[in-house]
């Protein structure tokens, strides 16, 4: 049976890059049992392996796009690629946007694929979340939970 994943991408040791993992931590235990919550480093091949098994993926990642820190945006990537300025912070050259486009090219992108991005401010090793980013983490968790529960999709604004 095809699965549903909520995937928080990032590195907890790199300041605001912890936004994705922090969102999935907050969602743990609050979602229907069949929804699987995954913390992920963002490596392309292993993301693709998750996409292949999924009917729906919800991805959360930090980004640096020039928007004010803590800006939360939602993208329906099943409909269109991530905008080019959504450069995700990855330790490798092949990250989230490449994984999404590779999955689309190979016909492996789940029919429901949604990305929440949170604009980061500082990615200093060992730093904690910036206050504005921490607030966005709470908002993202709430919106994502509502979207998954399909309770209040209207409140989630598409970017």
């Amino acid at each position, binding site marked *: 049976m095809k699965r549903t994943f909520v995937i928080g991408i990032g590195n907890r040791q790199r300041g605001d890059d912890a936004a994705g993992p922090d969102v999935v931590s907050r969602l743990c235990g609050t979602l229907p049992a069949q929804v699987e919550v995954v913390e992920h*480093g963002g490596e392309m091949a292993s993301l693709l392996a998750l996409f292949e098994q999924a009917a729906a993926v919800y991805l959360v990642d930090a980004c640096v796009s020039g928007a004010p820190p803590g800006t939360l945006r939602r993208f329906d990537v099943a409909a269109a690629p991530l905008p080019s300025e959504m450069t995700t912070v990855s330790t490798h050259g092949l990250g989230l946007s490449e994984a999404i486009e590779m999955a689309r090219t*190979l016909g492996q992108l789940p029919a429901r694929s949604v990305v929440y991005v949170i604009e980061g401010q500082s990615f200093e090793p060992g730093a904690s979340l910036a206050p504005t980013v921490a607030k966005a983490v709470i908002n993202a968790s709430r919106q994502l939970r509502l979207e998954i529960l399909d309770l209040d999709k209207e409140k989630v604004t598409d970017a």
Partner: protein
Amino acid sequence: MTRKTIKVSYLARVEGEGAFSVVVRNGKVTSAELSIFEPPRFFESLLRGRAFSEAPDITARICGICPVAYQMSTVQAMENALGITVTGPLRNLRRLLYCGEWIESHALHIYLLHAPDFLGYAGAIDMARDHGDAVRRGLALKKAGNDIMALLGGREIHPINVRVGGFYRVPHRRELATLAETLKRARELADETLRWVAGFDFPERERDYTFVALTHSEDYPLSEGRIASSRGLDIGVDQYEDYFLETHVARSTALQSRLSDGASYLVGPLARYALNFDRLPPSVRQAAHEAGLGPVCRNPYQSILVRAVEVLFACEEALRIIEAYEAPEQAAIEITPCAGIGHGATEAPRGLLYHRYRLEPDGTIIDAKIVPPTSQNQACIEEDLANFVESFLDLPDEALRHRCEQTVRNYDPCISCATHFLRLDMDRGSP
């Protein structure tokens, strides 16, 4: 005077940040420089004052592609300093973990980074539009390597289960058996990979490299051996610094390593293969032969073929280890800290990786030296550019620039390790 400059400011499909510049005057290359501008990360300094036992988890952070290599050279050097030797199933489990890294790292480079050069695509996603089955094969192969890493290392990247003296936890035989089916399939995929890359067109260029790699009396080298060269060098790992020197060049934040007489040398798949061909299982030698390879390959553009041979070897070796595995009684040898100097060298996917540590009596690290493979290959990469570019000057600018990038990517350079990404300047004079 005609003058041409080829500039690549940000070379894609390499790990890390760097650039290169080639200057041509009247049809002759006058300079070829690889510059690495990734900020240095001072890992050797931050190891000072830490406990010997912390080192494998710190050095694993040097690279997300080859963390196992860093852990393996670290534990070998520490164990050398502390006077212990890891043998039997623990040694084999380390070798199995290393096979996982070779499979995932080589599959990444073959399919996603290097193959687009041979098939004329800007990148793997473009290539996947026309070669979807091949890319799926590459991803499945990489995933098999990741599966080994996750089972033995605790997770796919930056494993957390390796310690000085062994592991924190060793798997039960039945756990490893679950990998066997994946690896049997991976071996078939590796066979298909070798046949696929054997069909590529390779520029016919060779150089008389000084190959440097580990050699071992019985095994194709991964986690241990003596250091040997194609020019007769045969030394213990503890003699490394007597024969190889690191120097600083202004254009690079990574040190460049050369032989003590100043000559360049090559580490990595071509060197390992040339110095250890007879240590490959007969089935792998046969597959290499069928792919058109002799026992020595001096054409750097064919490094993709040798990587494919090594993936096949790694699948076979992993299956052999899993079949013979009996879980050891203890996950690690007990260690009593003592003062000492230890040396370690293992074969990262990109080549020889040397570590040396000096310890206080309580096992605190006094100093550390780490020489990654890309530091050692920098001089060779520059010489390849200088030697080969002249013969490609009839190519139009865009094709010439691309050929230069391909020449650098032959080495699967991991600039992150050596200090991360590449920039090309090609100056061939005015037309």
